[in-house]
Structure formats: structure tokens, C-alpha cells
């Protein structure tokens, strides 16, 4: 295992310490626990608050989107492990600005159970909590079982749109509706070329041949649709795009937001080669690109691979997407 770290057990706390030291004007933490990351200026009175949470190892997901115009807080777990209900509650208390809290996070068992517990506990403290689950990964279940799908990079569009709605002064219902609308129009699919290693496990979570790739792999190394021979960038892009387009069914004349996301070790150069083909495929179908995001938005430490996320936008979603945001990992003006 080749990682730059000290003790594996200190990986997450030391990462969080570095984060707070690097961004003191933007980030702080609640309850004396570094795992409870909040906006430095929280609570923002009179604003619906947004929280997320999940395991570490996915930066910028999750905590990287805490900041103005996006999230108010994030409960941070150990690598690939849910934070505890207590930590979520701590975040919830600290960010609550009097208008309720929306939880937006990926559809993973541990996270769901703990966020549900946290929401129950928050209700005892008269904090109204609403939950929006992210289930954007088309590779994780067929359309008929879309409720079983896991949440991957598409959550960033939900953070963005709901965060903008909240910053504009939207009500709890409106913020939830914005998140749900964004997600109803969002689909993702990824491909992995190399594994990643959980620091404390010390060896890779999975193995993959020198000439193989996994089509549809999740961001914790969960397998996808198929293990195949490595293909060309255009073929890989076509595979991902076709799966997403078949599921999302955009029509000619529609506009999409496109995200080409690197899983960690894939250079931006390769992401732009993927974007090129994706853009061409959309142009052939007379589908417009409202905005393109190319970079690392949801990763799996040093895993090589990429995902594509498409979100169909109408005027409302376009405006929410275009709204400014400012976090340590995501700045839009």
C-alpha cells in the first residue's frame, strides 16, 4: 500500500485537522468533534439548512460541498463507513437556522439507518428534518428497481440545486422539491480501471486485470454490470452514455448539465477526451449542453476510472445550477 499517511487509524482525523487549518474562514466543526463539519458562519438564521454525510475517501464528496450556496454541514465517517447518528445530530443542531433541515445523501444502508436515527432524535428537539436519498447510479439496479440504486456523483447536482434554492430563501418544501427535481432528472454511470485501498485494510478492496475494466463500478469498489477487456475512450464513453441515455430518455431539443468525473487517479486530460465523445454523442441527438463540469467531484481515493452524470435541466434547474456557490472545493461565480 503506497499512501502518504501516518497511522491508518489517524487518516480521517488528521485529514480533518488539515482541512480546518487550511480553511478556517469557511469551515468549522460542531460539538468539539472534527467529524461534524459545518459552515464557519452557521447557523444561517432564517435559511433552510442542508446536511449530508457519509464515509471518508470520496473528496470532494461529501464535506467539500459545505459552503455558501451549497451545504451547511456534513457528518464525516471513517473511510467508506457511515458517521454515527450522534454525529449527524450534532451537525443538525448546529446548522439549524429555524427553518428546518434537509438531509441529502447517498442510498447506503449504514447511512440510511443512522440518518433515520438522527432524524428521529432531532424531532424530539423540535427540529423538522426532511430526507432526500440520492440513487443516481444506473449501473446498480435496473429501472424497475431504481429504488435500490446507490448514490454517486449525481449527488453534487442535488447539493447544488437545493443549496441554491435555500440560499435564495426557499421554504423547506421548496428546497426538498428542488433536490428531488434535480435527482429525478439525474443519472450517473462509472467505470473503474484500478482498485483503491482502505488505509486500515492495507490491501486493495478488489483486484482487476492489467487489461480489464469494471463497467458500472461504485465509488467504494462495489462491482457494476460487467468485467470486460479495457476499451478505447470513445467505446467506454459510448457504453456509459448509452446506459444513461436509455434510462433518462432525453428528447431532441432538451438541455443537459454534463459532469465527467474522475474517480481519483485518472488525469484531467483523459476526462476531457471522454467529455469530447459525450458532447459529440449529445450533439448527434440534438441535445444541448447547458453546463459542463469536468474534474474530480466524487472519488474513491486512488481508484482509476471515471463516471458521467447527466442532469436534464429546465429553466428552473438551469437557474439553480447557475447560481453562485463557494466552498473550499467548489467555486462558481
Amino acid at each position: 500500500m503506497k499512501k502518504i499517511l501516518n497511522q491508518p487509524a489517524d487518516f480521517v482525523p488528521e485529514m480533518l485537522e488539515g482541512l480546518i487549518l487550511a480553511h478556517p474562514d469557511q469551515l468549522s466543526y460542531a460539538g468539539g468533534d472534527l467529524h461534524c463539519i459545518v459552515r464557519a458562519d452557521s447557523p444561517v438564521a432564517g435559511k433552510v439548512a442542508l446536511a449530508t454525510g457519509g464515509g471518508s475517501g470520496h473528496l470532494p464528496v461529501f464535506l467539500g460541498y459545505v459552503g455558501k450556496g451549497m451545504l451547511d454541514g456534513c457528518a464525516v465517517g471513517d473511510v467508506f463507513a457511515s458517521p454515527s447518528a450522534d454525529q449527524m445530530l450534532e451537525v443538525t443542531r448546529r446548522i439549524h437556522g429555524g427553518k428546518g433541515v434537509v438531509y441529502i445523501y447517498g442510498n447506503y444502508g449504514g447511512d440510511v439507518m443512522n440518518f433515520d436515527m438522527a432524524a428521529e432524535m432531532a424531532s424530539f428537539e423540535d427540529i423538522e428534518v426532511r430526507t432526500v436519498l440520492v440513487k443516481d447510479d444506473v449501473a446498480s439496479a435496473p429501472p424497475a428497481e431504481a429504488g435500490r440504486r446507490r448514490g454517486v456523483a449525481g449527488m453534487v447536482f442535488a447539493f447544488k440545486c437545493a443549496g441554491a434554492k435555500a440560499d435564495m430563501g426557499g421554504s423547506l418544501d421548496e428546497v426538498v422539491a428542488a433536490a428531488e427535481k434535480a435527482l429525478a432528472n439525474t443519472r450517473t454511470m462509472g467505470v473503474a480501471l484500478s482498485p483503491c485501498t482502505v488505509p486500515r485494510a492495507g490491501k486493495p478492496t478488489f483486484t482487476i486485470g492489467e487489461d480489464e475494466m469494471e463497467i458500472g463500478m461504485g465509488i467504494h469498489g462495489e462491482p457494476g454490470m460487467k468485467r470486460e477487456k479495457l476499451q478505447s475512450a470513445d467505446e467506454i464513453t459510448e457504453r456509459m452514455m448509452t446506459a444513461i441515455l436509455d434510462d433518462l430518455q432525453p428528447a431532441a431539443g432538451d438541455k443537459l448539465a454534463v459532469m465527467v468525473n474522475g474517480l481519483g487517479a485518472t488525469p484531467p486530460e483523459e476526462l476531457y477526451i471522454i467529455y469530447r465523445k459525450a458532447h459529440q454523442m449529445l450533439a448527434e441527438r440534438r441535445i444541448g449542453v447547458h453546463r459542463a463540469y469536468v474534474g474530480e467531484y466524487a472519488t474513491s481515493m486512488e481508484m482509476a476510472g471515471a463516471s458521467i452524470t447527466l442532469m436534464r435541466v429546465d429553466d428552473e434547474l438551469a437557474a439553480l445550477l447557475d447560481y453562485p456557490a463557494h466552498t473550499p472545493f467548489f467555486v462558481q461565480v
Partner: protein
Amino acid sequence: MSEMVTAEAVVAALQRVGAELVAQEAYLTSLDQQMGDGDLGITLSKIGLALQEFAAATPVEDDIGKWLGKAGMAANKAGSSSFGTLLATALMRGGKVVAGKTTLNGADLAAMFAAADAGVQERGKAQPGDKTVIDALHPAAQAFAAAIDAGQSLRAAGEAALTAAESGRDSVTPLRSKIGRASWVGERTEGKVDPGCEAFVVMLRVMLR
């Protein structure tokens, strides 16, 4: 009069479970790497450490139930993956039904087992046959209750529970996982042991030791 389990014995059992979870970190992680994200052993090792620390530092103070509930909260703080959260839930629910007791008899233990089973099903929303810890936990709880009802000794009931847990675990090994992370692995889970089932068996075995 029926056999009684003392508070000291409960504390010692929790200590043994904690130590075993730490000892089995690599093994349980390797199972989870095959059909999950490879954190099960890590989570349970952290929980194991926390349970040992909790048991060493927290006096029972004449209420085994409350003590177990607090152990559950310590477990959730230490590690909150799916299995970790369900384990914490089991401790809290099991503790709740024996609140205020200073010793436990066979019926108490059977009630705890049943409450843990129900709590895990409620929290995790898995059905028997989905290939989760439920498939070991549920038959174990039933076998334990049946043995106690039939007037068997605690040890015999425990052995019956372990046997039921093991065969429950084995019965779902050929199946495809239907819930949680492993459900995304699909057919590739067939023939592989469910890591949560195995973790439960490991814990039950060391409790009886």
C-alpha cells in the same frame, strides 16, 4: 429455580465479544472485500475496542438493561457501518427489555434475543432470505427461545442457537444477496458466505465460551 446470569457474567461476555472482534479484523474485512466495501472487520474492530473500554470503565449499577443500552450507544459512536449500526441497535433493544434487572434468567435472555432480532429487522428492513445477518440471527433467536421453553439449560440453549445461526448462515450462502452493498454485486455473491452472518456466528461462539 432456573439458572441465573449475573451482571459480572454479562460484563465478561461483552469483554470476550469485544476482544474477539478485534482479533477477527483481518478475517472479517477479507469477507467484506469480496462482496462489499471491505470495512466490516475495521468497523467491528473499532466497536470491539470501544466495547472493551466501555465494559472496563462503566459500572453496571444494578441495571443490566440500561448498561447494555449504553453499550449500544458506545458501539454506534465507535463504528456506524450497516452492521455496526445493527449491532448497536441489537444491544439497545436487547437492553430495553431487561431494564432494571440485576440478574437475567433464561426467559430474560430469550426476550432479549427476540427484541434484538425484531430491532434489527425494523432498523434494516431486510427480510429473511435476503442474505443478511437476519438469516443467522432470526433462527438463532427462535432456537434459543424454543430450548428455554423446553426447559433446557442455558448452555444447551446457547448451543442450539449457535447451531441454528451456523445453519442459517450456510443456508443463504448459495443465494444472491438482496439488500445492502452486496445486492449490487448480484450473481457474484452466490456461493459466498454473508460477512454479517459470519460476524454474528463469531460473536455468538465467543459469548458461549
